[in-house]
């Protein structure tokens, strides 16, 4: 395997990456390099440990007395399948990897397994951020999936079972507003498309894929 290049640029980016402060494009570029470079991954781990250590110095402060009971009530209320369990089938196939590594085309190849390493690092760095998925239906037929990542910026990635289009992606918010996310066409082996979104992922009710010759394909997000 060729010697990975771009260590210099990645090292520049690592402190901000560990702090979760890097923008989408820079983050994608750095993660792309990290996937191939164990030395930079170790650097990132070290930097993440530093960030953890710094996080721990915030002064402790007792919350209001009802805090504990309110947390327990929320947990009792929220007893439903966890996001992680809902995501597990997708994680196992490595589909989500594409989103985090920059949204390029996903193929079930060895590259996936290499990228899985960067995916794990990303989750570690972005721990606690929102990551979710919704099935995309054409009528009653499963047409693909939409993955949502809450970060800065937030991302959506579409993975489709078949090439096709053109599609116009439209976001429907929980407040009923619609936002045009752009158009895409998938040809040849390309099965995915991604975009950044301004809205928090938690405010998305549905994603529609409009097409000329048939009703919208729809993915419903249940938060």
């Amino acid at each position, binding site marked *: 395997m060729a010697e990975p290049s771009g260590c210099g640029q990645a*090292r*520049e980016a690592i*402190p*901000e990456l560990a*702090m*979760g*402060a*890097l*923008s989408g494009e820079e983050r994608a570029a750095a993660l792309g390099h990290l996937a191939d470079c164990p030395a930079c991954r170790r650097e990132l781990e*070290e*930097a993440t*440990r*530093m*960030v*953890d*250590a*710094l*996080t*721990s*110095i*915030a*002064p*402790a*402060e*007792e*919350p*209001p007395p009802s*805090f*504990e009971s*309110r*947390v*327990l009530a*929320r*947990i*009792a209320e*929220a*007893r439903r399948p*966890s*996001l*992680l*369990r809902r995501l597990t089938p997708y994680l196992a196939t490595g589909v989500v990897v594409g989103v985090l590594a920059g949204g390029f085309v996903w193929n079930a190849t060895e590259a996936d397994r290499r990228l899985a390493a960067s995916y794990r690092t990303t989750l*570690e760095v*972005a*721990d*606690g*951020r929102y990551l979710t998925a919704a099935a995309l239906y054409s009528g009653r037929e499963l047409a693909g999936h939409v993955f949502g990542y*809450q970060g*800065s910026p937030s991302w959506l990635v579409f993975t489709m079972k078949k090439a096709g289009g053109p599609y116009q992606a439209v976001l429907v918010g929980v407040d009923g507003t619609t936002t045009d996310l752009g158009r895409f066409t998938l040809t040849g082996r390309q099965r995915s498309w991604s975009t950044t979104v301004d809205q*928090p992922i938690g405010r998305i009710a549905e994603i529609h894929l409009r097409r000329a010759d048939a009703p919208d394909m729809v993915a419903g997000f249940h938060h």
Partner: protein
Amino acid sequence: MWALSDESLLAGMASGDAQAAAALVRRYQARVFGLARAIVREPGLAEEVAQEAFVRAWRHAAAYDSRRGAVSTWLLAITRNLAIDALRLRREEPVDPQVLLTRLLAVEPADEAAQAAQGEEFVRQALRGLPLEQARAIALAVFYGMSGRKIAEIEGIPLGTAKTRLRRGMARLRDQLEVSDG
């Protein structure tokens, strides 16, 4: 209950044991709330963030991996990310990095937590040892999630300078903490 390890409490919480959940919340609520307060300041929002952090911890308990670090580290990382997201959603007043830094550095370790707080005191000491501008850049990035670009804007410095402050500051902290580890 207090004799149980964090890992056992987390496992109990994940399996629906309310007593374990209560014990874990009690053990860490001051640190989680304190961190949320340091980041978002407003007490109502900080409480919301801190509650959500425990709910997320419960929800993702199965994903916790003890080889990657302590439960407290994991819980605080979740809190930090949630608080920064909350801050980004309602960015109103400009932040004063000096106020944040003073708040972080002025703490005396509490008696009861003296043992645990010792490690934190090392970190504070190391941060105090940095040139002020590096410490400010690091505090802005770690506690407010600010990029080099944003720090450059706030501090009125070129982007390259902001990135250099972050990188040098982090490298120096690492050197100092590695020395105190050994």
